[in-house]
């Protein structure tokens, strides 16, 4: 028998709580280790290692969810990832600040997203956005963690540019085109986790580019695209596994030309499952029932994303934004962001992922477990991180959100982020009301 480590084993037991397990909230305990940063197989720890937890925390019946994953985040708290600074150490400092603030919203890991930009900008910023697990230690005090960058462009359809600057959009026919834009060294999954592209721009995109990216474990997402159902299906067959903010920046469903949305109904060949798809449930980008239709079409594929800009968490006002070759201004009015001068086009969101979860619960009636799954297990699966992120199974990273559901004083049933844990350490606790 091993030795009992009664003190300093770093294990905390969370008890009297409801754990998100699949499509259910289950009354159960959860053991997490701050030493390994992972969720502990408690029965084995007890019988094999003779371990009992250092601490026991009674959560008073609250919900424990895996930490939220935001698969599309352009920036927050005043910092946008599409920013070049003369001194890039300030860029790193800004990311560190952002990580510490972002984690307090329940987002414990995210995919930093860079919009369509010049090659120079990509090559400057991408190394700074690489997956932090690749480089740094698993340090809970660092806050939220990058899972690798998402480059949303520039190989997008100019007809579906949204607010992206058409001047920087390009067409790719070979991997060399991608390397010349992003930098060859950055075209690895630890740096570029995901690429959004429009598959219809060249025949080579579907024929060679998507398979080449897949073979490098880089996720291909269809977005800012005018693809037909047939073109989108071909891209999915070739290896695209995601659709970037479904409905936004693409052709709407037409009954004789279902477009990209049609892929949710399955491929003509049934050769592979329908792709995952991002949904911006901020209450501005999509009508509630649109979200519900997409969810019902392919419930296991829905990934809630914020597509938040750097104004998330800031007051209303006029904020600068580097957009390709231009410096634009974004106006924030409440939750709505628009580009100054083109005020009919939405310029990303300023929402938090927890708000999207609450909206999703209200709009679809799908229940809290499904809504939480859309920001945990589903994005983890989309990112190829099943079993590591987005789950409370033993061995997964102990990134947790403790949620209260319903505040009788305020008469709300909304979920609220009470505590956030990163790598088995509590890094945020909401202040109790006096």
């Amino acid at each position, binding site marked *: *028998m091993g030795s*009992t480590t009664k003190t300093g084993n770093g294990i905390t037991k969370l008890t009297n709580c409801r754990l998100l397990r699949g499509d259910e909230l289950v009354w159960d*305990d959860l053991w997490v280790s701050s030493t390994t940063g992972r969720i502990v*197989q*408690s*029965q*084995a720890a*007890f*019988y094999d290692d*003779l*371990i*009992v937890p250092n601490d026991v925390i009674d959560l008073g019946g609250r919900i424990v969810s895996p930490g939220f994953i935001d698969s599309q985040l352009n920036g927050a708290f005043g910092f946008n990832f599409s920013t070049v600074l003369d001194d890039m150490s300030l860029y790193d400092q800004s990311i560190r600040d952002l990580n510490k603030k972002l984690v307090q919203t329940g987002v414990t890991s995210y995919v930093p997203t860079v919009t369509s930009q010049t090659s120079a900008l990509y090559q400057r910023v991408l190394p700074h956005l690489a997956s932090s697990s690749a480089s740094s230690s698993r340090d809970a005090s660092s806050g939220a963690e990058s899972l690798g960058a998402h480059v949303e462009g520039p190989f997008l359809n100019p007809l579906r540019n949204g607010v992206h600057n058409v001047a920087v959009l390009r067409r790719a026919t070979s991997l060399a085109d991608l390397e010349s834009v992003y930098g060859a060294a950055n075209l690895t999954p630890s740096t570029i986790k995901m690429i959004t592209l429009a598959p219809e721009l060249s025949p080579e995109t579907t024929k060679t580019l998507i398979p080449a990216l897949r073979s490098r474990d880089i996720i291909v997402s269809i977005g800012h695209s005018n693809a037909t159902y047939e073109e989108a299906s071909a891209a999915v067959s070739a290896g695209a596994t995601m659709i970037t903010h479904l409905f936004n920046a693409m052709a709407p469903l037409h009954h004789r030309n279902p477009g990209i949305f049609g892929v949710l109904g399955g491929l003509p060949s049934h050769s592979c499952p329908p792709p995952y798809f991002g949904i911006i449930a901020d209450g501005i980008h999509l009508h509630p029932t649109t979200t519900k239709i997409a969810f019902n079409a392919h419930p296991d594929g829905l990934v809630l994303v914020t597509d938040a800009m750097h104004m998330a968490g800031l007051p209303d006002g006029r904020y600068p934004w580097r957009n390709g070759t231009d410096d634009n201004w974004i106006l924030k009015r409440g939750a709505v962001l628009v580009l100054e001068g083109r005020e009919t086009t939405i310029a990303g969101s300023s929402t938090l992922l927890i708000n999207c979860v609450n909206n999703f619960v209200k709009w679809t009636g799908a229940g809290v477990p499904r809504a939480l799954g859309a920001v945990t297990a589903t994005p983890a699966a989309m990112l190829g991180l099943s079993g590591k992120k987005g789950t409370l199974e033993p061995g997964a990273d102990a990134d947790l959100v403790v949620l209260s559901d319903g505040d009788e004083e305020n008469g709300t049933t909304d979920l609220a982020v009470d505590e956030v844990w990163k790598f088995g350490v509590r890094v945020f606790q909401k202040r109790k009301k006096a």
Partner: protein
Amino acid sequence: MRLIIRDDAEAASAYAANYIVQRIKEFAPIPSNPFVLGLPTGSSPLGIYRILVDKFKAGEVSFENVVTFNMDEYMGIPRDHPQSYHTFMWHHLFRHININPQNVHILNGNAPDAEAECLAYESAILAAGGIDLFLAGIGEDGHIAFNEPGSSLASRTRPKTLAYDTVLANSRFFDSDIDKVPRMALTVGVQTVMDAREVVAIVLGARKAPALQKCVEGGVNHMWTLSALQLHPHAMIVCDDDAVLELQVKTVKYFKSIEQVARSQGFEQSLPSKLRTRNTNPSINEPLVTTNGTANWSTNSSTYTPPPTIHDAPQSALLAARYPIPVERSKSPVFDSMSSRIQDGPVFVGVMTPPDELPDQGYHSDGSMNGSLKGHTNESSERAVENSNA
């Protein structure tokens, strides 16, 4: 034997759980003198475990200095299999309470040498000072632990084949696929349970009623292994109303009445003081095999070698030496109230019955007598008293 009957399963479980908590508190265990508890699995004890957990959470009891020994474990399924008894105990009890994992003993159904594992288990029980209270359940065929019908009542911890009925009954936990049900288990023996200073069995539901009847009203019989409890000096069966369906009304009334009398006298179900604390030399079940120098035996130790005395001595002599017939009597009238009513010799002072007609055996517990003298002698003795008073 004490038989405690409660209206329903919840009340019976609460009684047993309260009793265990009371025993632990009276014992006041400390690390050098822990309370040693034997534990069952299965559906019967679930309510007890739930209440024990509640009581622990309410701060009513601590398991810090409680040592546990489980009855049995399947062979050939992974330890953390959903149906393993390791998993059962973890799920229903251990993870909720402050028990020290070093104090937990469960047979290793995957031990490379099952025989050695079982011998080591017996030794570990001895090293812990013997079991103070063995909680038990009962199968529909009256089995205790995996001691299926026909098991030796002198059996000790050993590998055991499971009866076909048990395999069939357990298949519901294994995807209803009989091929997935383990056919073997490691289990403590009937004698292992009997060695405990006290045994508490929980029997719930009408399906257990025939077994309870056999074990309480029938004779000691290896086809109903729980019936061995009849030979235990401090056995208690706690059951619900459904479980007594097959008992005679007389039996039920008898056990209810003596519980009532005991309570009215303030005895409740308490044990002799020595057994309550084990602080003095235990009079019962004193280990024959000394554990000096072998206190470090562990059930998982690969270097363990079983003590030779267990094998070499004849079993009967061993048992006789280790388990002398207890001479101590309970301070409670409950344990031996049946025998205490048996008269040793003539007690009659009346004038109506000649001495040569006295019965050999005397009174039954209900005051009646054998044969033709039924209802006769009590009245005569009472009359005699009245006469003398007159």
